[in-house]
C-alpha cells in the first residue's frame, strides 16, 4: 500500500510552501500531488514554480503528479490547463472532464476525485482513455467501491481520500470574500490569512464546515486510519492524505507506521488526536452520513 499527499487546498505563502515541501521530501510518502486545484485567482505559484518543487521532490525519490483546477470557467483557466497537460516531465491528475479531454489518448493520467466515477462502466471507460489510477469520490462507501474493484481493468490503481478535511463542494462564489463583504474580483486574496480555512459553526457553536475560498470543506477530519484493514482487503493501492497547515508530516508517519504494522491504528489514532485541528469522522466509508464517526469511538470522541 502506498501513501500519497494530495494537493494543498489552501492558499499559502511561497515561504510556507517551500518549507512545507522540504519537510515532505524527507517524509515517508510515495506520491505527491502539486498545484492549485481550488481557485484560479490564486497566483503566488506559477507552473514553473511548481515544476521547481516537483523536481526537488522527484530528486528525493517521490513520484510527483501535477493536479489541475477543479472548476474551469474561462479561456485563461483553459490556457493554464493546456500548459499542465502538455508538460513532458510529470503525470497529470485530471479534476475536470475538460482536462480528461486534453489528456485522453495522449498520455497516461490520474482520474481525480471530482470526476464522479460511481460505477464500473464509467471506470472502464476512463481507463480506456488512459487513466492509470483513479481516486474514488469522497462520498463513496466500501460497499460502493467493492464491485468496481472486482471488475477493474488490469493495471488500474485505486486511490482513496483517507485523511483530511473533506472537499465537499465547489462554487464560483468565493465564500471567504463574502465573509469580508468583498466581491470576488476584488478579493484581496485574503484567504492567505487562513492556512487551514475558516470554520463555519452552527448557531449553537458546533464546528460544521470550513470555508476555503470557493471550496467548502468538512470541519471534521476525515480519517480512515482505523479502517486500514478494510481498505487493504478491498485492494486499495494508495491512501491519500490531504495537507493541513501543521503536522502533515506527523500524520504521514502515523499512517506509514500502521501500514508497516509498527503500531496499531488504535494507538496511532490516539496519538493523532493532539495534531488534528478537529475531531475525526469516517461515516462515508461505512455508507453513513460523512460527518459520523463509526467504531473506534472510544479512541476519538466525536464532539
Amino acid at each position, binding site marked *: 500500500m502506498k501513501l500519497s499527499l494530495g494537493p494543498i487546498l489552501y492558499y499559502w505563502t511561497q515561504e510556507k510552501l517551500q518549507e512545507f515541501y522540504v519537510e515532505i521530501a524527507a517524509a515517508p510518502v510515495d506520491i505527491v500531488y502539486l498545484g492549485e486545484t481550488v481557485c484560479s485567482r490564486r497566483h503566488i505559484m506559477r507552473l514553473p514554480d511548481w515544476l521547481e518543487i516537483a523536481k526537488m521532490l522527484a530528486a528525493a525519490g517521490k513520484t510527483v503528479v501535477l493536479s489541475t483546477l477543479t472548476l474551469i470557467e474561462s479561456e485563461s483557466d483553459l490556457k493554464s490547463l493546456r500548459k499542465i497537460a502538455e508538460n513532458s516531465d510529470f503525470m497529470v491528475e485530471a479534476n475536470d*472532464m475538460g482536462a480528461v479531454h486534453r489528456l485522453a489518448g495522449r498520455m497516461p493520467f490520474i482520474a481525480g476525485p471530482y470526476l*464522479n466515477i460511481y460505477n464500473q462502466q464509467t471506470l472502464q471507460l476512463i481507463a480506456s482513455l488512459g487513466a492509470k489510477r483513479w481516486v474514488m469520490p469522497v462520498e463513496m462507501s466500501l460497499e460502493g467501491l467493492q464491485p468496481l474493484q472486482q471488475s477493474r481493468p488490469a493495471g488500474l490503481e485505486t486511490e482513496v481520500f483517507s485523511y483530511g478535511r473533506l472537499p465537499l463542494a*465547489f*462554487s464560483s462564489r468565493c465564500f471567504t470574500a463574502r465573509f469580508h463583504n468583498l466581491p470576488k474580483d476584488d478579493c484581496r486574496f485574503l484567504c492567505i490569512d487562513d492556512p487551514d480555512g475558516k470554520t463555519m459553526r*452552527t448557531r449553537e457553536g458546533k464546528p*460544521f464546515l470550513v470555508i476555503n475560498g470557493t471550496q*467548502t470543506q468538512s470541519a471534521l477530519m476525515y480519517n480512515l486510519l482505523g479502517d486500514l484493514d478494510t481498505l487493504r482487503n478491498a485492494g486499495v493501492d494508495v491512501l491519500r492524505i490531504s495537507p493541513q497547515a501543521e503536522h502533515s508530516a506527523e500524520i504521514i508517519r502515523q499512517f506509514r507506521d500502521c501500514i508497516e504494522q509498527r503500531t496499531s491504528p488504535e494507538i496511532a489514532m490516539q496519538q493523532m488526536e493532539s495534531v488534528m485541528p478537529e475531531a475525526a469522522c469516517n461515516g462515508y466509508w461505512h455508507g453513513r452520513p460523512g460527518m459520523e464517526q463509526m467504531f473506534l469511538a472510544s479512541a476519538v470522541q466525536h464532539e
Partner: protein
Amino acid sequence: MPPEYKLELVCPAGSLPALKVAVDNGADCVYLGFRDDTNARNFTGLNFDAANARAGVEYAHEKGAKVFLALNTYPKSHGWERWTKAIDQAADNGMDAIILADPGLMQYAMRTHPQLHLHLSVQGSATNYEAINFYHEYFGIRRAVLPRVLSFAQVEELAAGTPVELELFGFGGLCVMVEGRCSLSSYVTGESPNNCGVCSPPKAVRWQKTAQGLESRLNGVLIDRYADDENTGYPTLCKGRFEVEGETYYAMEEPTSLNTMELLPELLRIKVRGLKIEGRQRSPAYVGQVTRVWREAIDQCMKNPGGFSVKPAWTVELGKVSEGQQHTLGAYHRPWK
C-alpha cells in the same frame, strides 16, 4: 436550409397534470423523471410511472411539444439496470432526448439506441467547452445544460468554443454550488444529488419550537433559527445561517430564486437553445403560472429583442411563487460571485 433559430422554453413536469399545464401554457419542451432514484428530484409522490410517461409523451407530441427524460443521477454498480431500463423505456416511449450525467450511461445509450438524442445534465458539471466537447466527441451529445455558476461573459466565451447547443437555467431554485460537485447533503444526511437524487431530503428535516425561536434541523444539525417575525424557509443546508468568527449570517447563500429574464435579449444574441425552468417538485399551478409568463416574455423578445424590457406585471407574477420572495441574476451577473 438550416432550421430557423428558436429559443426553446423548457419546463418542469413532476406529474402528468403539471406536464399538461406546461404544454397548454406554451412550453416548447417538458422534462420529467421516473419514480425512483434515477433522477435528481427523487421525491415522494413526484414523477412518472411507465403508463403516465407514455400518456405524457402522447399529450405533448399531439400539441407539438418535446419531452426530455431526466436520468441525471450517477448509478452505483448495484442497480445499474434500473438506469439502463429507463433509457430503453425512453427510447420505446419516443422521448425526444434523455438528459444524462454519467459517462458510462452515455456510452450505453449511444450504443444501444443510436437514434436517441443525448443531453448533458447540469449534474455533469461541464463549465467549459473542453469538457462539453469531450462529451460531444465521445458520445455525440447534442445539448449541454450549464451549471448555474458561470457569468454571462463566460457563457458567451464557452458558446464560441463548442458546436453543442446550450441550455441555461432561467428561473427557479438557485444552486450556489457547482451541480455535480456538491456532497454537502450526503455529509449531513447520507444522501446527495449525485448518489440519491436528493438534496437536504425532507425525511432528515425536523422543526422544533424552542425558547430561542423556531429551529430547523437536518439530521440533527442546526441549519437555522427564526425569530417570531421572520419568514421561515426550507432548510436546504447551503441556505442556512451559520457563524463564522463571531458573525452569524447566510454564510453561503440567502434563500432566493434565480431570474434571468432581463438577460433574454443577450441569450438570443448568442443563440442559447434552451431556457430551463427549475421546479419539478413544484405544483401544476406553479408550473402553469411560470410557463405562461415566460412564454409571453420570450415571444415578445423574439419579435423585438432591441426593444425588450421586463414588464413589471411579469415580475409581480413570478415574485408570488419565488423562494424567499427575492430574485437574483445569480452568477450571470458577476458581482454575485
